[in-house]
């Protein structure tokens, strides 16, 4: 699988992760995404932090400074109401895409 993460899919991944984990800092998010993707998606900082800023600019998440488990100052990101709505919409459209793609790819497998 390509390590290039499509912008739209990364956005949805981050939003979903925040939804399931609650407020989280960038490092925690990267770690979690790496875990869930079973080691495939090792996000580079140059991808992760701009993405977080982008989501914040869209008012899908908001950030505040807090203290991490090991007592360090860290920026925590959390979902906004708008972000939650976006997850619902994006999930739906993503599922549609997957099901359509599935049909095409299944037919191709059948032909072979």
């Amino acid at each position: 699988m390509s390590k290039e993460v499509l912008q739209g899919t990364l956005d949805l991944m981050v939003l979903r992760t925040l939804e399931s984990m609650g407020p989280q800092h960038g490092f925690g998010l990267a770690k979690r995404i790496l875990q869930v993707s079973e080691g495939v998606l090792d996000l580079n900082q140059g991808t992760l932090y701009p993405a977080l800023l982008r989501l914040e600019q869209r008012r899908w998440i908001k950030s505040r400074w807090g203290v991490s488990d090991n007592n360090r100052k860290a920026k925590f990101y959390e979902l906004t109401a708008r972000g939650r709505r976006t997850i619902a919409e994006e999930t739906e459209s993503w599922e549609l895409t997957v099901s359509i793609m599935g049909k095409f790819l299944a037919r191709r497998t059948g032909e072979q």
Partner: protein
Amino acid sequence: MWGRLTDLVRRRRLDRDLEVELAYHFEELVSQYESGGLAPGDARRAARRDMGGLTQAREAYRDQHGVPALETLWQDVRYALRALRRSPAFAAVAIVTLALGIGANTAIFTVAYPLFLRPLPYHEAQEIVALSTYMPQTRARFPSLPVRAIDFDAFRRSNRVFAAMSAITPADFNLTGVSEPERLYGARVSANLFTLLGVQPAEGRSFLAEEDVQGRDPRGDHQPRAVDEAIRLRSVRPEPPVVVERAELRRCGNHASGIPLSNRHAAPRDGSAGPARRRLEADGLHAQRADVGRQLELGCPSTGRTRRRHPGR
């Protein structure tokens, strides 16, 4: 977009925040490696390797929080201003040159636009041409001559070139019988002019075909109704009928019309044709016009004249 713009304002803080975040990220990586069993020094090295493209990360972050083109533009503007401040003499020369250039251009365009560029406010204005005549013998001194009414009639009768032809000549009128007498600068035109131009009077009626004939007064009220109406059309005054001093009108009436048929809002003061643009277009009709001219010479409708006119080329 709005989010990006506000970020533009607070970008210094954003850059600082990113540094803190990256530092935190780094420390977390280090502790992760340490708890994985690496020696502290090795853990930091490993973390540093993981955090590889930090500059790249900062760049990407900045691209996201700015409006890139706007920022580059702003940098350019500031650079230009600094450079100008360093050499004030050059700056002054440049500014004066620009000011003169812009001023001259504006002035010329202000004149050229209404004269040459602005389309005529008429239906299918590109079809309208102005015709005038000249005599070969006097062409150097009088490049363009008015046309007598009788010649215009001949032109119009033998016309196979134009959809319609109309005559117009500048004329002055005295407006009396209103609170304040006024000198009006207008034009005497043939009845079909408004139809030709495709315009409708804002108020009242336009001319009747019968009114084209000299001395004919279809309404029987001995008033030059057409002129009257024309004045009412253009007059901003609310007063209903206006009386035009008859002596003045008679003086005008004994002249016939010139041919130039299109003009701007007012009649050409010199009786000559309109702008060159349209005369140029008319050149394409040169052959046909020459034909009209020949017919005119042969038929010579202007009787009693020894000197002939040579309309067209």
